């Protein structure tokens, strides 16, 4: 029983990171039909930007700010202007391929300009354990969980409570009508790209202390976030959150109770089952069939 509790906490903590990454993924899909196969690499890069800033002599807090700003510039603005905008009108597939190439490019750039070795990364949460209900739970897990949940709640509050959020949703759901009623659709799309960049930078900051900064660390994470987004509902922010938590917990439980060798298979089989029996995702809306 105690084992189960620990597994759940650890699972929720990783799941919260998946949720952060998956939410950005669904935001991009909703506003601009972009499937970003480089999303995992987008999480990998900010940690290296922060490390580079620290190597240049910046203190940790400044490195974090610089890292987040640079991510928003590179992974938000530049990504949208240089890659997505020129390719958007050509359909989903070429753009998806281009983001695969981008993933290769980012990985290689980090390997070449930074290091092929894994680097340690300072944690913003103090290490150590606290006792909850008689269980020793690592502060890091709790910190990650709390920060990720705060970010996600902040985002949903922005989307649902503010006029800006309503404009963003209108732009995502029906750009033509949104334009007619005066929503600056282009600006809203840019905003979602910036929010995605912010979320991946935050995820990077939270997860890198646990798994080290490595140029390949985006691969697994990107895949987990995709699965989370699809399981929860490709077109729903709350779906992505639920999917992320679910996949995180499932992954941890599978490692303990199924087999360590086939641990990665469990979320995959779950994914296939969800797609076949409920293609719109557990919390998603069915998209209209295009003829």
């Amino acid at each position, binding site marked *: 029983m105690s084992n189960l509790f620990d597994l759940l906490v650890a699972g929720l903590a990783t799941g919260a990171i998946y949720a952060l990454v998956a939410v950005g993924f669904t935001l991009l899909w909703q506003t601009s039909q972009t*499937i970003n*196969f480089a999303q995992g690499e987008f999480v990998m890069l900010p940690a290296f930007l922060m490390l580079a800033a620290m190597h240049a002599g910046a203190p940790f807090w400044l490195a974090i700010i610089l890292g987040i700003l640079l991510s928003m510039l590179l992974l938000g603005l530049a990504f949208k202007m240089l*890659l997505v905008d*020129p*390719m958007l009108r*050509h*359909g*989903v*597939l*070429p*753009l*998806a*391929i*281009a983001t*695969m*190439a*981008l993933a*290769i*490019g980012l990985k*290689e*750039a980090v*390997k*070449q300009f930074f290091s092929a070795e894994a680097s340690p990364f300072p944690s913003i949460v103090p290490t150590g354990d606290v006792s909850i209900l008689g269980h020793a739970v690592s502060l890091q897990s709790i910190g990650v969980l709390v920060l990720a949940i705060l970010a996600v709640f902040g985002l949903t509050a922005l989307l649902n409570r503010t006029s800006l959020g309503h404009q963003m949703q209108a732009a995502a759901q029906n750009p033509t009508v949104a334009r007619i009623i005066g929503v600056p659709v282009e600006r809203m799309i840019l905003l979602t790209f910036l929010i995605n960049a912010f979320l991946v930078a935050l995820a990077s900051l939270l997860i890198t202390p646990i798994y080290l900064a490595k140029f390949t660390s985006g691969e697994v994470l990107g*895949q987990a976030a*995709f*699965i989370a987004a*699809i399981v929860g509902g*490709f077109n729903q922010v709350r779906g992505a959150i639920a999917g992320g938590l679910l996949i995180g917990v499932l992954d941890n439980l599978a490692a303990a109770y199924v087999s360590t*060798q*086939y641990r*990665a*298979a469990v979320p*995959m*089989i779950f*994914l*296939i089952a969800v*797609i*076949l029996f409920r*293609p719109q995702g557990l919390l998603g809306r069915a998209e209209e069939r295009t*003829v």
Partner: protein
Amino acid sequence: MSGFAKPLKIAFGLIVVAALIVVPMNFNRYGLFILSQWAVMAIAAMGLNLTLGYAGQVSLAQGAFVGIGAYAAAIMTTHGWPLPAAIVVAIGLSFAVGWVLGYPALRVQHHYLAFVTLAFSTLAFLVFRNESWLTGGIYGISNIPRPHIFGIATNKPLPFYYVCLGSLAIVSLAVWWLIRSPWGRAFMALRENPLRAQSLGVDTRRYTLMAFAIGSALGGVAGALYAPLTQYIDPVPFNLSLSLDLLMMVIVGGAGFFLGPFLGAMIAVLLPEWLRFTEGYYLMLYAIAVMGLLIWSPTGILGILDRYLAERRTKAASAQRAVAKSRLETAQ
């Protein structure tokens, strides 16, 4: 014009084939390996081009079928079976698995299908890695023999390159025939508009499954050649990134063009080698080249050519129209 273009095309094709036969004769071992790899990957990409380019079904599992073919060939040939028998088994096995993988395509499309096939890819990788009684696990299978073809040993790189090239030629002819047959037309009908295809009496169910099965079978063929080419296989080359690479080859070459996979495989296999003089930067430059190409022409390299030809044709047609019009006016 077309009466003139056809012999020109045939002559150009013959020159390319002759060059592929003659030029590598004085290549070194590594050059021959890379060129053989190109031939093998072109076969796998051709299979994916059938599934994706002609039938319009997105698949991220082609790399898994290359793996299935490679393991079938490796296991059988190390147990003393001849390679042709292994190829037949590889084809049969990937055809059957590809057929089953086609079923999700009957229910879901586009990105959902991409993710089902992606999941399949990962599952296949786990099986290759974990079922060590069969696949040797992470240690893989070594000493995979190269075949004797008509009594000639192909242990040396050059003869085996000809085995790969010959297989590529056979597969190309088969695919060429297939896309010109009613099947090929049914595939294209499926891609252009599934509902209309159905209303015209195309059995969309059967052809969707076929598109997956035949495309996967070609992946199996490529794998069965890949195993003796490298003579050692482990699970790593058949992970998801091979499937992504193959998808990139098809799109970059030009999905739905017969010659697309040849060019795509050339870019994916040879371009990084040519860029090797840049040392650590080569994959980065490759990635930038792919992105640049896709921004410039999302329909791939052959898309550029196609656009150019279409433009010329429109120009020629409007010129003809102008002539006809002026003649009509003088006649009046």
